[in-house]
């Protein structure tokens, strides 16, 4: 059974639209105008247990919004979503026990207390039995070389040290699925390499499924056999990394070409296991609207753009 199953997953936001100029700002005080923005537009995504998937796209493509729906933070506007057998937003507290989340820009740890004490608090929050906790902490501290860091207050850690601790914190309760939102942002090459090694290792050892968003394509090349490329809320490519790599061309260029709506790869574009989304850059015609009723799935309020 798939660990992530999203069908026609859609998220719309109502955005405040400001008028230009001082007079406009004044008018905004009284009557606000809104426009509906479709951040994620009817995407289909299936991830099997043990996969490591790179989820990439330019800024504003809808990556974070997707992750927030998959982790239960946001409620989808429409579509069907099942993660780890749960509807994430509906049974939030039960569901989040089964996942680990690392937001590169945000800390999971308490600023003023030692790392070890943050870990103990997380142990209590997740209700991890002592023996299990010790075993996991030993393993994580070993692989991530946390040793001396455990007794340092988080505020005194460097970014790289902190990120290693963040990864350990996200895995202390043994989640089967790990979400990483730009985990290597701002890190130096040495730390990046170490983190990649670590992710490969937990994936191999525990079969942890990983969904990774990043702007660093080297992360993707090192870790993800499969990539999903998103732009303007729609999936442009979902398939094997190898299938889009052309001879003599860096991944960077290929991805840029895809963002710009050029054809993918050679031939059919669908390499082994790859699936190309039809009508690249050709607008919405191919997929129709988003009102397709998924069978047997849970349909949220239609909440159209109108």
């Amino acid at each position: 059974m798939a660990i992530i199953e999203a069908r026609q997953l859609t998220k719309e936001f109502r955005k405040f639209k400001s008028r230009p100029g001082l007079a406009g700002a004044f008018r905004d005080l009284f009557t606000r105008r809104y426009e509906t923005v479709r951040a994620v537009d009817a995407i289909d995504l299936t991830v099997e247990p043990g996969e490591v998937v790179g989820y990439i796209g330019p800024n504003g493509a809808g990556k974070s919004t997707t992750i927030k729906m998959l982790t239960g933070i946001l409620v989808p506007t429409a579509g069907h979503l099942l993660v780890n057998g749960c509807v994430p937003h509906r049974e939030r507290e039960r569901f989040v026990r089964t996942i680990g989340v690392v937001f590169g820009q945000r800390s999971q740890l308490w600023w003023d207390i030692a790392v070890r004490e943050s870990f103990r608090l997380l142990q209590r929050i997740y209700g991890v039995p002592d023996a299990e906790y010790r075993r996991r902490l030993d393993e994580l501290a070993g692989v991530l070389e946390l040793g001396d860091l455990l007794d340092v207050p988080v505020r005194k850690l460097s970014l790289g040290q902190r990120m290693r601790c963040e990864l350990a914190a996200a895995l202390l309760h043994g989640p089967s699925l790990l979400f990483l939102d730009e985990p290597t942002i701002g890190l130096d090459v040495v730390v990046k390499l170490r983190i990649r090694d670590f992710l490969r290792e937990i994936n191999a050892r525990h079969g942890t499924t990983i969904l990774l968003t990043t702007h660093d394509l080297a992360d993707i090349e090192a870790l993800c056999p499969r990539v999903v490329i998103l732009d303007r809320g729609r999936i442009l490519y979902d398939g094997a990394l190898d299938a889009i790599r052309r001879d003599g061309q860096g991944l960077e260029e290929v991805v840029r070409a895809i963002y710009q709506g050029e054809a993918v790869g050679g031939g059919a574009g669908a390499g082994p296991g790859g699936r190309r989304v039809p009508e690249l850059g050709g607008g919405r015609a191919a997929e129709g609207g988003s009102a397709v009723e998924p069978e047997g799935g849970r349909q949220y309020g239609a909440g159209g753009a109108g």
Partner: protein
Amino acid sequence: MALRGLEMARYLPLIARFVAQNLKSRLAYPADFWTGLASDLVHQAANLVFILVVFQHAPSLHGWRREEVVFIYGYFLVPFAVFHATAANLWDFADRYVVRGEFDRVLTRPLPSLLQVFLETMELESLLGAVTGVAAMAWAGRALGLDWRLADLAIFPVLVAGGVAIYYGIFIALAAVAFWTDSRTGLIPLLWNLNAYGRYPVDIYSRRLRFVFTWVLPLAFVGFFPAAYFLRRGAWGWYAALTPAVGALVLAFGVAVWSAGVRRYRGAGS
């Protein structure tokens, strides 16, 4: 409600753990800890001196004697100290959690979001205000020759809990407004001083304000009515019996506003 209570009992060990950690992290900055303590004390002393100065010019205030007003203030300090110490995180909730997005992290943890926000920051040194309050009550009670009954020992914590619940309810609702606005400061810094209205005899206010502080923003139930009960001021003291119910009601209201706010934050309709 009973179910809610049981659920909270499940969290008690966790709460104890967080209290200990918060104390530890406060002590990690001794200077902050001591200045916080000192500024609370100065504030309380200034309020007491203010009361004493007022009474140098008038022998009584609407029939309230100096010692009685000191007693009311002393009593008020107890629920206020508990509130201030435990709900400190509501102060900059709008900026810290909503504007800067920390609330996302809260939602990825298997605990009720409101409980997490309470637990993440506390200013436990503010509890010292309760000691000041009890001392003021003891001094005034002695001067007035108050007769304490054994039952008062049981009634006191119940009334304090009711008062804390009223503060919680009001300020949780105000903090939750941040889910609807994009304002950085939120309403709480603006309205924090509202709490002052709970600590004077309510009949010094105009009829209209008296109604507001009794039935709309029931701050009189936090300090004044319970204190009037201990002062055996029958007419006002009887209101104190309503304090626990008013507390439960206001807290339930605050939690309801919070839940609606969280639904909005997560983009579930509204």
